[in-house]
């Protein structure tokens, strides 16, 4: 297995454990969840084959689902994120293209680009997740409140993590 492959496996397990042992317990105001594991799919190298990307997303989603007792729910949302990701990356390519071998991180592309990249994907994930769990649009505004507050919470944690690794790299 190549070096990057080992890193992927390492981060996979790290994000899974952090999500189910730490962030699963952190629910603010009974509505704001933090699904930080989405960032693992966002951070995989740009040239990753979409089939492999979706495969990894499916595995991570199912693993999270086992701990949340919601088999299929997180996997469904995360596979959708993995599918949309590459189209979004192609749409918002910065001038001069991406640096070869670089992940789509805040450090390599700047804050503005990173927000345009991550907010829609995290929103899609949360939207699909909460409305599928609620079983439709029965309690629309309450579910929407959950989506928005969770989006804010997850994005805060993601940005914090990005700045943290950014400082360390320099």
């Amino acid at each position: 297995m190549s070096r990057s492959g080992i890193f992927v496996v390492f981060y996979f397990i790290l994000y899974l454990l952090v999500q189910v042992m730490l962030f699963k317990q952190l629910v603010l105001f009974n509505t704001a969840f933090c699904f930080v594991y989405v960032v693992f799919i966002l951070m995989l190298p740009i040239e990753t084959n979409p089939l492999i990307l979706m495969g990894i997303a499916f595995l991570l989603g199912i693993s999270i689902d086992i701990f949340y007792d919601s088999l299929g729910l997180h996997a469904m949302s995360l596979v959708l994120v993995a599918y949309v990701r590459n189209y979004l990356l192609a749409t918002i390519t910065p001038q001069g293209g991406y640096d070869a071998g670089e992940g789509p991180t805040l450090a390599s592309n700047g804050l503005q680009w990173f927000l345009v990249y991550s907010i829609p994907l995290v929103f899609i994930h949360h939207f699909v997740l909460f409305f599928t769990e609620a079983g439709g649009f029965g309690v629309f505004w309450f579910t929407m409140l959950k989506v928005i507050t969770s989006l804010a919470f997850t994005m805060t944690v993601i940005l914090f993590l990005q700045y943290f690794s950014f400082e360390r790299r320099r």
Partner: protein
Amino acid sequence: MQRLLNFFYEYRAFFTFLLLELFCAWLLIENNQYQSTKFFNSSNRLAANILSFSQGSREYFSLRQINEEVSRENSQMRTLLEQLTRDAQSASTKDSLVRYEFVSAKVLNNSVAQFKNYITINRGRDAGIEPGMAAISSFGAVGKVKAVSEHFSVLISILNIDEQVSSTLKRTGNFGTIQWDGTDPRLVNLLYVPRHVQPLVGDTVVTSGYNAVFPGGIMIGIIQDVKLKDEALFYDIRVELSQDFRRLSFVKIIKSKLKSELDSLETVTIGKVP
């Protein structure tokens, strides 16, 4: 044929995506069906041990609260024991005593903020737990057993939008159904109470015992709000749960000794209908 294969190859990402999503949807639907003994939930050994470790480290911060709860439960039990010894002469209580057996278990994993909440506990098949049994705490009904493994089980909480509990108004004796709407973890709805009944704020709601899961008379909560719209057939009743699910640390699983007898009797009776 070649063209068809080319077409599939060209859109392979999309078709893989479709396949995975359909598989996930199938899992979701399959998982919603009540009672299963599948492996892929938090009762499997690895997941339960990780959750147990994480709960164990968090527990130190809530020891005081757990202590309080246990001592309160202790005093309740003492009162009950007192009553029972007083009633021991009259033989009528004997029947209900042997009908149910209790297994005490610790909560490893619990959530209240999702739409479908589940509870993982540290007892499983080896303690005699089976899917379909009822779970209560010292303050009221908690849920039903959904899946069991050798040493752990998963309960479907009352705070789950798919869960319905047959219940009755203690004062008037009318029946209704308790179901959560997914919003506030302290409140559930009491459905299907018809117009002619007069429920009041402060009335007690208990389980009806009309299914073999919950024994009758187990506390669910107290009515907090009663509304009746002009054209509605039924009341809109909000019930405040007597068990605060955010601070649930111990549950008791009820083993109904007569459940199989009741079930087989009902099957026979229904089976005989011409």
